């Protein structure tokens, strides 16, 4: 990517973010009720999007070559178990990442 393309990419992210933050204040007011479909999406879209983002992070993991996705799989399990156990976001993320780094640098070398 050239510098201009990088700036456009970041600008698109700023635009997308600010559209979602400013839009309600521009189009809705207390007199106009939020359309029912928008409310419905608000309820169910986030779960689906975060599911998609988990897969997005793993898009370059190959199950058939190299480490067969084992370090990723194990580290995700550790992250999940830590989170079910302590339900503390920082502990789960830090623990999972440390586990992944250890696996990558010492086990699956």
């Amino acid at each position: 990517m050239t510098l201009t393309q990088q700036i456009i990419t970041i600008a698109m992210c700023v635009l997308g973010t600010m559209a979602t933050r400013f839009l309600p204040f521009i189009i809705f007011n207390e007199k106009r009720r939020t359309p029912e479909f928008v409310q419905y999406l608000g309820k169910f879209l986030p779960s689906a999007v975060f599911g998609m983002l988990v897969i997005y992070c793993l898009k370059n993991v190959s199950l058939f070559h190299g480490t067969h996705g084992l370090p990723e799989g194990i580290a995700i399990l550790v992250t999940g178990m830590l989170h079910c156990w302590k339900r503390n976001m920082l502990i789960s993320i830090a623990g999972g990442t440390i586990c992944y780094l250890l696996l990558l640098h010492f086990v699956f070398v």
Partner: protein
Amino acid sequence: MRYKALKAAFPYTLPIFTGFWFLGMAYGIYANASGFSFLYPMFMSLLIYGGSLEFVTVEMLLSPFAPVQVLIMALLIQARHLFYGLSMLDKFKGLGWKKYYLIFGMCDETFSINCSVDIPEGVDSGWFMFFVTLLNQLYWAGSATLGALAGSLLHINTEGISFVMTAMFVVIFLEQWMKETNHTASILGLLISVICLICFGADAFLIPTMILIVVLLALLKPRLDKKEQEDSP
């Protein structure tokens, strides 16, 4: 008046302080390990100011140039802010120029404070929310910048640090899962993404995935609405 509001706001931002420093530093180190100078995470954390999207932006900066896909991705990841805005329509009324900054800086954590806290008596609510927003943004941008600087100075082997993004989304996904009574949308998000990834490949699966998620959610609406009514007492 300003000082009083700052003093009232600061304690509420302390829990966010810890979380933001940890994630922000990790973000800075990750961006730096991906080959970007501290200027990138600094400007991204100041201008985009939405943690999950910023991680994804680094990944997208390393991919082929695709501005439309980036915009749709940003809209979908940030769509939840629409609902934050709806809840703050009243609270932000009549605050003048501060209102625009409050909307600009309304990330998940800032929203959760500004939406839920009963502002102490005698404290100006506009300034209170202004300082909550400002402090949180300073923590985030400061830690992202410092993380990137530390990463470039320390010369540690950062291979694999990008997993911090995976772990973050796994945790957010789990949080959503624990909160919801019906897991259809969560399962749908995972399944559609995997299927599209297999069919379209790593560089082209996002747009079909996002379209399919919205279309299928729209088609399932009657059923999910019904289930929702049955589940709620």
